[in-house]
């Protein structure tokens, strides 16, 4: 989830940048092409017009004027030379001052009325037959009037020229555009590399590590983001500290009166025992025993709820985890449990080897207490409970096995849920014990497993810790 989300962010940043860049770059491309077209077409076109005009000048020199009589004489060979062109068909026409055709291709369109001659020369676009032509007309004095010499050609050369101009400007511009987009694409990736480093750092840190991130190595642009993150970290850490303070206070405020209550019910019980010996009614004592049992259960429940809260994120400090030997945790707590086992006539035994884990010793002790408590609670008198620690395939483990009634396979998942109790059990449990164990396992990255014990009897609950 994390990594795909991160990738999506990067892709969308790139896409967004490209989307923003593409229209202006495309517009620039078009504008560049159009600009180049007009800028280079004009002079090129003028050069072609000039060539036509030169032909016109040559033709004009062939006009002979004798008084009012105007004649035109072009040798056949010269006309053939003049009409020779690789791409276009050349037309010409010479008109007398009265407009009558003197020579050449009849019916070339006349000079448009709106156009004024510049130094006796007019160039214009027109059509001849169905073909587009370019005409250059010259006004030449002759026989007391003005003769018109029109030289025209089809526009193949010019179209070809225009196409060449557009192509020769478009190709490099397209290449530049593609290069720009590519640079943006990879540039964004490179530019975001420090952000990726940052997200790797955040991703690989423990979920409970709330120390601020050092902004020294972060890019300038990421610092506001980092500052916001650090602020959030600070708030979470603060609320976690509040929770820890609250738990410490709640523990104190709950346990002290419970201890007092327990003390007095025990005194009352002891007194009722001697009172019963003197013949006092029995019912009073039975009620006192109920009160006493309820007190013990309440005390245990209070402890469990506190343990559960402490095992939740924010309830403890992961950065305060220490090297803990599972064996030492069990040995420390053994005294307490051996006495309870003795009171129930259960053989509580140990098979302990060293097993180092990184842990909160208090939470481990709590997990162990719940495991042993459950085993003692549900194992009948004369039964056996065995606590083991050590390494299995290099992984540290802690396990408690009993030969009591066990947990039906179908219910093994459910017993890890809070307040779930196996049907038909008579214990006084709250249904919290194993869910506390699971929370604590989770906090330590440990796996919890439930199996039947040896020979398919009883129950074996194990915690397997990450090694190292």
């Amino acid at each position: 989830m994390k990594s795909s989300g991160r990738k999506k962010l990067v892709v969308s940043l790139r896409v967004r940048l490209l989307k923003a860049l593409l229209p202006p770059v495309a517009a620039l491309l078009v504008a560049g092409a159009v600009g180049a077209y007009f800028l280079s077409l004009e002079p090129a076109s003028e050069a072609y017009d000039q060539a036509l005009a030169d032909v016109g000048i040559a033709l004009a020199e062939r006009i002979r004027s004798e008084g009012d009589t105007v004649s035109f004489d072009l040798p056949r060979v010269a006309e053939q030379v003049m009409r020779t062109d690789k791409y276009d068909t050349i037309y010409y026409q010479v008109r007398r001052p009265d407009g009558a055709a003197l020579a050449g291709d009849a019916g070339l369109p006349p000079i448009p009325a709106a156009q004024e001659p510049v130094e006796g020369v007019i160039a214009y676009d027109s059509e001849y037959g169905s073909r587009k032509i370019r005409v250059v007309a010259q006004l030449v004095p002759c026989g007391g009037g003005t003769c018109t010499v029109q030289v025209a050609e089809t526009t193949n050369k010019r179209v070809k020229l225009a196409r060449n101009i557009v192509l020769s400007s478009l190709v490099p511009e397209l290449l530049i555009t593609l290069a720009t987009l590519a640079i943006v694409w990879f540039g964004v990736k490179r530019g975001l590399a420090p952000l990726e480093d940052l997200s790797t750092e955040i991703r690989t840190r423990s979920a409970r590590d709330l120390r601020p991130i050092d902004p020294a190595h972060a890019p300038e642009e990421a610092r506001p983001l980092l500052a916001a993150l650090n602020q959030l970290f600070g708030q979470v850490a603060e609320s976690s500290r509040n929770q820890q303070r609250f738990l410490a206070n709640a523990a104190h405020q709950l346990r002290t009166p419970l201890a007092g209550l327990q003390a007095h019910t025990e005194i009352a019980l002891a007194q009722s025992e001697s009172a019963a010996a003197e013949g006092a009614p029995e019912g009073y004592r039975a009620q006192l025993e109920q009160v006493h049992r309820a007190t013990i259960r309440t005390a245990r429940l209070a402890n469990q709820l506190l343990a559960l809260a402490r095992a939740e994120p924010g309830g403890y400090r992961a950065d305060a985890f220490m090297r803990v030997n599972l064996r030492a945790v069990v040995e420390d707590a053994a005294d307490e449990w051996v006495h309870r086992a003795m009171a129930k006539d259960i053989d509580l035994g140990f098979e302990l080897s060293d097993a180092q884990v990184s842990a909160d010793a208090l939470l481990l002790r709590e997990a162990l207490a719940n495991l042993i408590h459950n085993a003692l609670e549900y194992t009948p008198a004369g039964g056996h409970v065995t606590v083991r620690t050590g390494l299995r395939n290099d992984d540290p483990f802690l396990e408690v096995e009993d030969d009591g009634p066990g947990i039906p396979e179908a219910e093994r998942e459910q017993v890890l849920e809070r307040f779930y109790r196996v049907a038909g059990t008579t214990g006084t449990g709250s249904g919290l014990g194993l869910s506390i164990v699971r929370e604590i396992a989770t906090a330590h990255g440990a796996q919890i497993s439930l199996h039947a014990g040896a020979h398919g009897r009883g129950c074996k609950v194990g915690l397997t810790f990450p090694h190292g």
Partner: protein
Amino acid sequence: MRILIVEDDAALASGIARILEGEGHAVDVMATGEHAVRGARQERFDLVILDVGLPGMDGFEVLRRFRTGGDHVPILVLTARDALDDRVRGLDLGADDYMAKPFAMPELAARVRALVRRSQAQAGPKIVHGPLTLDTVARRAQLDGEPLDLAAREWAVLEVLLARVEKIVSKEAIIQAVASWGEELTPNAIEVYVSRLRAKLDPANVKIRTVRGFGYMLEEFREKKAGR
């Protein structure tokens, strides 16, 4: 025995007081650390039960003042907090034992007895455990008033167990305490000594319990038939 209880919760303090009075002790209750420090200067107590979570001067500070003042009275620390640090800190500051609230009164009574016994053992050469008496100076043992014949190593093992009644003593700890002759001792050898001790002590109802895979525990002495 004269016992001082320093606990600000009146209900708990009076409960503990009544239990201990029932065991034949004289009990004083003080609700603040300041009172306790002052009181201990004026009077001599055989044992102090000290709550860590006192208002004002907290239990650790009281403990520190006792110890830096050169008072070596046995101190049993009570705490309602579940930080193991509390326990370590308490023991570092010179507490003799530690209990987390809430606790069962018989357990408190047993701890008090153990502490009293320990301070008495330090005070004199005789260790008494029900019908069993060990005179550590004369190196003579008695059971039910009769002389008890113990081999040197049986004596040594028994002494280790007597020092920690109701506590599990691991086989390794016994070996370390007993093997001061500079020779190797196997856990099997310890088993042999313990079974010989059992044969001698069982008839008088002095019980050494085996804690499977761990070690042994000398149970608190109970009269026959007075079981729980």
